């Protein structure tokens, strides 16, 4: 009765990992992965190169069922895939079309919508953006103010969305809009697909505290949207939005990101000097690294447990929220220690160095440039996608029976 747990990947899984790795080795341009490694700004084309490669390989829709052109992978395969693309420093797969809208259309779209939109997502013909958040309605979508008024053959949309990531690259946006103004919060909301080139749609950049332009405001002024662009039933958009929010998220803990940041931290701590000696030999700094590494090690197992359960068909419940909380804290801690490791070298800020082709001498070691910027940028991960506070509320409500 000797009892053993098995933490190893199966041979099938290991083969799959090798296939992903080899494919990335072969197809991912070195110049592109270098840009990612150096935290340089990615152009729309940079994303498209990688995503077109994925399309060609049939791996773009890694979350979709096979019958719709997806991979049909189980949770472990998805986990391995995600781990490898991060390890290879590939650009991220822009999720709004393929990972967010796709599953909603597959579940709730009309045949016409599926036939029209899904192939365009699979071929990267459409670049989608997400229109959920509004000023005054972040984690709490119940207080939306953007309205869509029924005008017979179309809706007339007015309002403002915000935090629209990469919205300046997008052709289309899926939005939550109020269609019943008299309904209670969370009711009377519809899920609407809008062409960005419709008259009255305006995209305004938001510059974040690190000086970067990644997110946007999207303004709607008397925008006419054809009625067939509604997904599912009118006034039931909340259901579809929730479907997305609870959608299985294997990568939510960001383990591979934290692992690569931890390695980077160790490298930098070996090169940074404190009193003439490598910082990694400082007993206190190395202890902070060690406890972070232990937290990450435990979280990796926690994540694998959840992935493994998902592969067996158990939908993760509060685990997703707990992993989101811990994952963001661990990842933020790596950026904090990276910043601390640099000492005064973290101060210089040369925004031009993040442009492609910049080849001046940096101030200080070349790895120093993006570190402080990255620390401030990463403050966002505990805020967006349901802030950590919201996650705690969800866990408490779901698990405590209080």
């Amino acid at each position: 009765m000797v009892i053993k747990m098995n933490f190893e990947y199966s041979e099938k899984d290991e083969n799959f990992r090798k296939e992903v790795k080899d494919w990335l080795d072969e197809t991912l341009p070195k110049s592109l992965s270098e840009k990612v490694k150096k935290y340089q700004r990615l152009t729309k084309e940079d994303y498209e190169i990688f995503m077109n490669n994925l399309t060609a390989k049939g791996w773009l829709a890694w979350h979709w069922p096979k019958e719709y052109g997806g991979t049909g992978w189980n949770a472990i395969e998805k986990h391995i895939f995600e781990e490898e693309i991060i390890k290879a420093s590939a650009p991220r797969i822009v999720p709004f079309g393929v990972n967010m809208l796709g599953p909603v259309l597959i579940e709730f779209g009309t045949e016409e919508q599926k036939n029209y939109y899904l192939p365009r997502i699979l071929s990267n013909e459409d670049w989608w953006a997400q229109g959920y958040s509004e000023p005054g309605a972040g984690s709490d979508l119940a207080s939306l103010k953007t309205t869509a008024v029924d005008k017979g053959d179309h809706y007339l949309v007015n309002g403002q969305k915000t935090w629209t990531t990469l919205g300046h690259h997008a052709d289309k946006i899926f939005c939550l809009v109020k269609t019943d103004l008299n309904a209670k919060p969370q009711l009377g909301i519809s899920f609407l697909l809008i062409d960005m080139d419709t008259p009255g749609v305006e995209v305004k950049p938001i510059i974040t505290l690190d000086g970067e332009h990644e997110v946007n405001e999207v303004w709607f002024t008397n925008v006419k949207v054809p009625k067939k662009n509604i997904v599912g039933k009118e006034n039931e958009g909340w259901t579809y939005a929730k479907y997305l929010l609870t959608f299985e998220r294997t990568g939510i803990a960001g383990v591979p990101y934290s692992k690569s940041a931890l390695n980077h931290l160790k490298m930098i701590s070996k090169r940074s000097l404190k009193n003439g000696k490598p910082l990694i030999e400082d007993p206190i700094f190395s202890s902070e690294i060690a406890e972070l590494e232990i937290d990450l090690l435990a979280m990796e197992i926690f994540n694998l447990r959840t992935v493994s359960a998902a592969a067996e068909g158990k939908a993760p419940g509060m685990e997703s929220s707990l992993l989101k909380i811990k994952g963001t804290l661990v990842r933020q801690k790596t950026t904090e220690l990276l910043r601390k490791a640099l000492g005064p070298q973290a101060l210089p800020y040369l925004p031009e160095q993040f442009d492609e082709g910049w080849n001046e001498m940096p101030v200080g070691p070349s790895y120093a440039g993006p570190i402080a910027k990255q620390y401030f940028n990463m403050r966002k991960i505990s805020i967006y996608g349901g802030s950590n506070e919201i996650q705690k509320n969800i866990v408490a409500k779901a698990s405590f029976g209080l």
Partner: protein
Amino acid sequence: MDFTLSEERKMLQETVGKFFNSNYKNIEKRSENVNLPEGYSKEFWKESSDLGVISALVSPKFGGLGGSGEDISIIFELVGKSLCVEPFLSSAVLSSTVLSSISNPRNDLITDIIEGNLLISFAHCEMNNRYEDHYIETNAYLKNDEWNINGTKSFVMNGDDASKIIVSARINGDVNDRNGIGLFLIDNDQTLKRPYNTIDGYRSTELTFKDLKGELLAKDENALKCIIKANSAGALALSAEALGIMQICFDLTLDYLKTRKQFGKSIGAFQSIQHRMVDMMLEIEQVKSAVMLASSTFETDDLTRDKNISAAKNLVGRVGKLIAEETIQLHGGIAMTWEYSAAHYAKRLIMIDHLMGDSDYHRDRFKLLSNS
């Protein structure tokens, strides 16, 4: 990958769980055992043996029926949930690990332990060696072909009732040398004993030896290897025990929050309390993960084994403090009382950090092993 419980595991967990539960129903029952002359229940110990609980902690190679990292974790998670004070750690884990890891394993003695007929304590700690494997002041010298041992061993768990003692002693070299250590088996009837209870209810003893005859079990490299393995096995067992305790602490606190009312609503309805409970829950999941990892790599190479065990024990120390202190704070006064079980769980949880290496010790060891 397989994180689910096998059928065997579920069975073991269920059987032993029921058995512990029926014997450690409540905190008064535990106090009775604590206050017995031996500091534990000989009856319960014998029954544990009959049920195969001790055997489950020992590998079939040495006459047991289990002994894997997972076996140890399953049993000790239940030990934690019941706050058992019987000699599972001292005799069934520490001593049997030494006896099975020496060059010529002593299956005879292990069998006696498994059958509940013999208690052997492992006397390694000293007043000044804190948590070190190799810092040893007690010494042994050879005279007329016989080994003689001199010195004092502290914090010897169940060292008053054990018939035999395994003693680590310095044969040569400086107190802090990694070489020159020997392990000896001695009869406990001629030792000078100073038994006492620990603040968390366990029986421990100070043992003094004056030219006491001992049988050499291992020396030099093999001896140190055995000490390290025993202490690692102990740290794993304690980590699993702590995990069991944390789960009980969480459940007790949640129950309390549901029933206790303040300002007209149950305390659990307060958001700040809920968020703290989520933090606790999250960290317990982390500990569970670390214990699972350490268990699953217990039989691999020494480096991986010790690194993962140190990760687990370090996390247990940090999270244990959080859980123990939050359990008391969120209960308010009631968890400050002797008659309520939460106080005893919290005490044991805190004091586990004072056994087999605290969170600082294991963080440093993890650091060392990560870089080697």
